[in-house]
């Protein structure tokens, strides 16, 4: 794939910003617009931008873990956050809170990971065609 210096330079600035923004969306989601879904999509977009500018191989290296692992980890985290409530004697997926933190955030993190993993799995597979 031909690469563009402009795109690469822009990516170097945009990617961290996008990732930061995706974290912000995830964390702020409970009270402000955002959430795991939107956050995950933005994070995936950041990695895809990298893949467009530097190629899929480089994007995989930056990601460190395989998208499939992300999916599995996400499902695991989301399920675990639900089972936590079960262990505390409450119905599955009941939100448990201590101070400002609660299991819904953990659940949202699971959603975040699954969305990143799922999107990247598909996009990488298509780009590597």
């Amino acid at each position, binding site marked *: 794939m031909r690469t563009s210096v402009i795109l690469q330079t822009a990516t170097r600035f945009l990617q961290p910003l996008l990732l930061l923004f995706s974290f912000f969306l995830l964390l702020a989601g*409970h*009270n402000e*617009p955002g959430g*795991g879904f939107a956050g995950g999509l933005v994070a995936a977009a950041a990695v895809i931008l990298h893949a467009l500018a530097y190629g899929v191989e480089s994007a995989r290296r930056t990601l460190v873990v395989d998208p*499939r692992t992300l999916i599995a980890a996400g499902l695991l985290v989301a399920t675990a956050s639900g089972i936590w409530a079960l262990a505390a004697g409450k119905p599955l997926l009941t939100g448990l809170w201590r101070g400002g933190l609660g299991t*819904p955030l953990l*659940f949202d993190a699971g*959603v975040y990971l699954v969305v990143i993993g799922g999107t990247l*799995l598909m*996009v990488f597979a298509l780009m590597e065609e």
Partner: protein
Amino acid sequence: MLFAVASGFLLAPVAPAVQRRWPRPAGWLLSLVPFSVAAWLALAGSRLDGGALRWVYPWIPSLEIALSFRLDGLSFLFALLIALVGGLVILYASGYLQAHEHLGRIYAWLLVFMASMLGLVLADNLIALFVFWELTSLSSYLLIGFYHEREAARAAALQALVVTGLGGLALLAGFVLLGRIGASFELSELSPQAAALQEHPLYAAALLLVLAGAFTKSAQIPFHFWLPDAMEAPAPVSAYLHAAAMVKAGVYLVARVSPILGGTPLFFYAVAGTGAVTMLLGAWLAYRQSYLKRMLAYSTVSALGTLMLLLGLGTPAAVNAAVAVFFAHVLYKGSLFLAAGNVEHAAGTGEVSRLGGLARVMPFTALGALAAAASMAGLPPSFGFLAKESLLAGAVDAPPGATWAPWVAVAASAFLIAVTGLVSLRVFAGAPGQAASGAHEASPAMLAGPVALGVSGLLLGLAPGLGRLLEPAAGVVAGAPLAMNLGLWHGWNLPLGLSALSLAAGLLLYAGRDAALAAVGPLGWGRFGPAAWYRAAMQAMLKTADVQTRLLQSGYLRSYLTIVVATVVVLLFVGGWGRRGWPLPAPAEDLRAVETLIVLLVVASVAAAVVSSSRLGAIAALGAAGYGIALIFLFAGAPDLAITQFVVETLVVVLFVFAFYRLPRFARFSPPAARLRDLVFAAATGALMSLLTLAAAGTALHAPISGYFGEWAYLKAHGRNIVNVILVDFRALDTLGEITVIAVAAIGVYALLGLRPAGSGK
């Protein structure tokens, strides 16, 4: 109690590890599990004293389903034997499959099976009973198919699963009916309502459904054929599943429900009739076999028929006899199956005509087998003799509708005595057979089972205290305490005479077997028997699947799309229009200028996408339309939706670009007619979706629940963003499902893209 039942389930996963870690003593170690369960049961049983103990663990309270267990005379007898024989069988398997690489696996499955069986006989709740029932079917599928590299074993396992599984479905339906009629799923709450249940119009349906389950499981004709085929399993599995435990589940169920459903003419004819036919035909079919294990299998079918017949007769004498025959059968048949395993193991064949004189090289196996055979033939002083006496007494004492019962019993016994001779005398006594050359005695682990079971069957006839174990069981079946008068000598009476008559006839049949079989000729059931129905049904199912697959699965994405879209459009148009028309909302009057602009932008983008002559152009235009929609969300006050929509649109464009990147240039192949048809489809779909959206906006089935969410989002879920609170808290289960779908879909796409045949460029 819960722990006693669950111990098998808990230990099964570690059984293979135990086998790997301590390969030599693994069998002895693991057999401690069933033996300690048996010891615990014996302790608990000693406190019974004719009553019942009950344990209730909440399971699904909202459906009134509890994990309740009941230990009474009947479940105690069954559970004790299941645990004891289970221990012996695990021990036996450690020797029989010593060299097999998957020995640990069979330990695990045997433990799972034993635990399911214990749950089945101890459950008081019908739904729990059903779950354990199905677990036995599943674990038996794995056990029968243990030699999974053999085609015959796989087919036999599947056949057993299909037949008993179908029966299981009928059973569930029967249980649900019973539960609805009696307003409870607890057996102990249903039995006081027996009279009311039997007068209910649905009684017959419930009874027949339950019996269908019991008959398939207990291999009653015409469902018997899976049992002989299941002899593909290793010998310990056959001994456990097909002599001691699983096939007795149906008998147990009929015994358990007799106080509730029994006593009616329907029950009598269905159970006693099926039992009598099975008893007689099973004995005859056993007599015809030439292979050791298949003979035993058919004789088991016959014994199961005997038990059903006795339970169907339902008189006190018959119920006593059923319990005695059950007990005797577990001991002698378990022993014979294990001994048959030893013989096959040592001599390399189970073909009776090639065996003989094995007592000289396998003295202990012969001891166990001959002791068991004495019990099976009903020779004094074995327990089998007592059981047969009570069986004949029960048959003589039959109610008026079953005056034929003694003759059926004598005829079946005669054939079974001949079979007993074939599986014992022919194999162990006489001149050495062709296959005797390499034969050798089996290891101690493989002798414990057959000898213990066989000899105890022989000697228990002399044990006076046995009535204390069996009487409570018979009492539970009869619904009232019964006295069991077990004794070797009751004086010169009719049962004794009949016993002698059957013995004489049996010896004649044994001696004249070749002549008798030659005179009758081949059976001819191969093409018309129940096994052929099963094959025909399976083939018909495959053919139907084949035809409908070829009809629907053309392999062309475009035809799938056409079918799916056309179905949706037609059904929704007809359904929606036909019912009540489309309720359209009133046109909005306060449209803002910016909204008008966005709508114009969307319409223009769509038009551009339609007329664009390049794919990339069309994709970009679609993306622009999507951005327009996102803008509408934004202005309508849904920033979450807008953010997601923006990102999704962006990503979709990227995905499309990569998907289409390698495709050849846009060209027109379709003839005008096809293009016109596509236009109609597309337009109809678009129109339908627009109408649906409008109709959904204009319909209020009930008050919107957004108010509730708005009110409680912060108070209960500590979040001000209602959308997100709904996603991660109020409707978290939905979200969990959705992310699972995302995961599966992504993996599916990944797998499909990876699937391309090697070397093809497209």
